[in-house]
């Protein structure tokens, strides 16, 4: 029980934290943690297949693509 609640808290907290960053690279990394939290939560909610997908896409590929975008544009929000 307590694990799920902790994960839920991490998910909401990291979503909000990512959005208030001025440093976009940091926001992208925090969003990676949100994706990882979701993957763990999916695992706890009996969706093993989806957890694997979310772990790969949500914590590696999507933040990676965002990081490329930030590298190709600008790092700090104007």
């Amino acid at each position, binding site marked *: 029980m307590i694990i799920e609640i902790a994960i839920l808290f991490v998910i909401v907290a990291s979503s909000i934290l990512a959005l208030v960053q001025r440093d976009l690279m940091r926001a992208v990394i925090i969003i990676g943690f949100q994706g990882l939290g979701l993957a763990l939560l999916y695992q706890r909610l009996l*969706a*093993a*297949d*989806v*957890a*694997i*997908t979310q772990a*790969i*896409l949500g914590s*590696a*590929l999507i933040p*990676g*693509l965002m990081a*490329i*975008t930030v*590298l*190709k544009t600008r790092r700090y929000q104007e």
Partner: protein
Amino acid sequence: MNTKDIYEMRTVVAAVFLGIFSIFVLKALTSFEIIPGVSYVYNLQGPSIAPNMITVILFDWRGYDTLGEAFILITAVFTTGILFGRGVLGGDVKVRDTAATRQPSVVQKVFAAPLVFIIVAFGIVITLGGHITPGGGFQGGSVIATAFFLSVVVFGLRKNVFSLSHRSLETFEGVGALIYLCLGLAGLGLSGYYLYNVGADFYPGLGVAQWAVNLLSYPDATNAGIIPYLNIGIALKVLSGFCTIITVLMGAEKK
């Protein structure tokens, strides 16, 4: 009323609507009563096709949705291609080599290459065992795509472990999608229903020829039929799709 006033008015309206929307959604979600529904039937009938229910739903009952979803990824890949060079007037994607800007350190080189191969092997295992264990085409394909990502980050676009050009990646993607489409067409031609699981022959009354059943059944203890082949097609497509997007975005000019 000038532009600024209109902008502020819009903001207020948007905020009010967001508030109303939040209340409705939270109210609906907290007063939810869930019934098993059609999932029960799937869980009841699925074990006679393959052990992993999610794979069975994805590739058998709702295989057509999966086809559509594969094509969303393809559309996205084509669109990124259009964004970076292809277009109405012909032309092709121009990818700038990123290796020249920074040399990888020795540690990176020593650790990255074996790691890439391990991840690729892991991805292949996930793909091939998708109908028995958690995993499948999407998962396997995207795992391999992460390996590609890692190798691109460490070794640069031109001289990485895979060394695949944009063109060949697109060809792979087309082949993956065509595998899926043609297995569906095989079902249509042999039984009259698109994406019929010919190899498993779940409804023997449809008059599917025996040679086709033998040809398309997977050499495995379970009766998965064409599901593993569809998995391979999807894996090929997802892997090359994400690799293409990574290549194109990494190769964009930073002006």
